[in-house]
């Protein structure tokens, strides 16, 4: 679910980043208030925990494996605000040090996975727990929270993708960033999450949560400090978050002319009818952008020199990779 660089416009990234600022500010404030000072390192260690949990592979039926996000688990174990901080830091580390998810898209990724997911998941968890007073209620709440939290995050991601073509297009209608409208992005994102990933998250959250509840219940109470009363607040936040995409959706469909069908019609009505997919292979558009070693928008000589440098760099890299491969084989 990590959004890579350049799928969202810089404006969207800025808006999502700005949305994360008050969220983080509230989280830091809440954590400072609720978590006693001796528990402060726990958030850092919790971030390390959240980071590592994303690396754990979970077996899937059919022999394959997948991995959980673990944000709802972190919310259950550390409390929702500490989880928000911990997952934010884990995502920042992934983006900055491992190239997983865009640096600019960090705000959006944090919003989806460090805010929406733990808050919604925790809201569902507390509701279930207060409805059924037995431990079974808590376990069911964890599973349901994991499922709902993950899917809420996926829905937000899909909406962010889907709004791009409507909001950021060149004057001729060419989308500048993610080119798929809501009608494509929502089904494409939601189907795998509703059918597979949600269940992984649910099972993972419930199993690990149940284990900790049985093995070390005191750790659980300690970590969350005293902030377990506000069921209504979490439920409200969860409801608001769930309703927000509906508003965005309503706004999105107002730009009717940008729907997939219309764009497709415009294109097929024109010269694109009878388009040969093979003609779109690698070299075709690249050549069009740089005919005879000139780069559109640059003087001829500069373009030529640039192409030479580019070619030289690529060949050196390829040569070094090949040489390294040969060396490795010889030593093996």
């Amino acid at each position, binding site marked *: 679910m990590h959004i890579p660089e350049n799928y969202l416009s810089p404006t969207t990234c800025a808006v999502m980043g700005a949305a994360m600022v008050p969220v983080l500010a509230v989280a*830091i404030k809440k954590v400072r208030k609720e978590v006693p000072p*001796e528990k402060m390192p726990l958030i850092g*260690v919790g971030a390390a925990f959240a980071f590592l949990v994303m690396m754990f592979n979970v077996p899937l039926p059919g022999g394959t494996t997948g991995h959980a996000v673990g944000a709802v688990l972190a919310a259950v174990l550390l409390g929702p605000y500490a989880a928000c901080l911990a997952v934010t830091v884990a995502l920042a580390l992934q983006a900055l040090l491992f190239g997983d998810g865009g640096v600019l898209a960090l705000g959006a990724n944090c919003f989806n996975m460090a805010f929406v997911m733990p808050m919604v998941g925790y809201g569902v968890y507390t509701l279930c727990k207060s409805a059924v007073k037995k431990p079974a209620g808590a376990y069911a709440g964890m599973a349901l929270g994991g499922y709902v939290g993950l899917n809420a995050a996926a829905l937000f991601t899909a909406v962010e993708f889907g709004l791009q073509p409507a909001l950021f297009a060149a004057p001729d209608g060419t989308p500048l960033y993610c*080119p798929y409208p809501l009608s494509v992005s929502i089904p494409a994102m939601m189907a795998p999450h509703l059918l597979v990933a949600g269940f992984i998250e649910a099972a993972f959250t419930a199993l690990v949560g149940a284990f900790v509840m049985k093995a070390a219940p005191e750790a659980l109470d300690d970590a969350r400090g005293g902030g377990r009363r506000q069921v209504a607040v979490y439920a409200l936040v969860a409801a608001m978050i769930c309703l927000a995409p509906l508003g965005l959706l309503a706004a999105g469909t107002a730009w009717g002319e940008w729907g997939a069908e219309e764009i497709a019609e415009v294109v097929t009505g024109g010269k694109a009818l009878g*388009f040969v997919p093979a003609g779109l292979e690698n070299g075709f558009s690249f050549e069009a952008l740089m005919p005879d070693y000139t780069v559109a928008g640059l003087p001829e000589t500069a373009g030529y020199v640039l192409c030479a*440098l580019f070619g030289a760099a690529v060949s050196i890299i390829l040569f070094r990779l090949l040489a390294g491969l040969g060396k490795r084989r010889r030593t093996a």
Partner: protein
Amino acid sequence: MTEHPPAGQSEVALPAWLRGRDAKDAPLPHRGRGGGDRFIDKTILALLGLLSAMRAQDERPDAGAPWKATAFWHLLGTLAAIVLVALTREFAFVFVVLTCLLLRLCAMPLADLRKIALLAVIAGSFSFVIMLPAALAGNRYSLTMIPAKAVASVLAVGIHASTSRWTETVHALRRLHVPSTLVFVLDIALKHIFMLGEFSLETLRALKLRSVGRGRGRRGSLAGVTGNLFIRSHQMSEAMYGAMLCRGFAGTYPVSGNVRPTKADLCYIAAGLALVALFLLLRRGGTG
């Protein structure tokens, strides 16, 4: 499966995975379809990769070399390059940035080069495949621009991550006025990812060694490993707070260090400004 020794050889036959130079370097034994612990292998491999990457970046010999820009300026430059690449609509600009990054990549140690090139190829081809349906609908802009931009961004981040120590990056973030609570959390997280990673690696290895053949309830044991990881983190954080108190921790996280740019920094800043100038020039040319 155990292989039989050739005729005339009387020594005890060892499985192939034990006969390598070192057992830990050899591929993990394959248990076939019924084994069901492929997820343990995969997790172990993922953790091993993470730990070796962390070790490698910590032992980097040329980090802080005089010809290298300080991590602070390098981080700023990387962020600026990513922002400009995301903003531009001119392919020429993306191409210039790509060329600069590839030239820098040429001069990197082979291991880093291989890692970053692989990341870039994956990012580029992934974007290309994602953009294909849009291209079939007639949108050719996305097909070239987005993969090229994705490759440029991944190269920029990859080069930054593997040329500066991660502690330096955290330090640079503090100098960028990121709130101290976040920097503190980041710093602790980085250190504990390594320690907790080693802990979970040991646990997973133990789990693997103890579950030979067909086994049930491995999903449950994974939950146990993760749960133990949490309990362990909890204990570690308590121990850490005690250690911090003993060393006079007062709740603040001051940053010291040389703020004056070095010669390498000045060269780096000049190159960055040239890039910004080119961006503005191309932008004016594009719209005018």
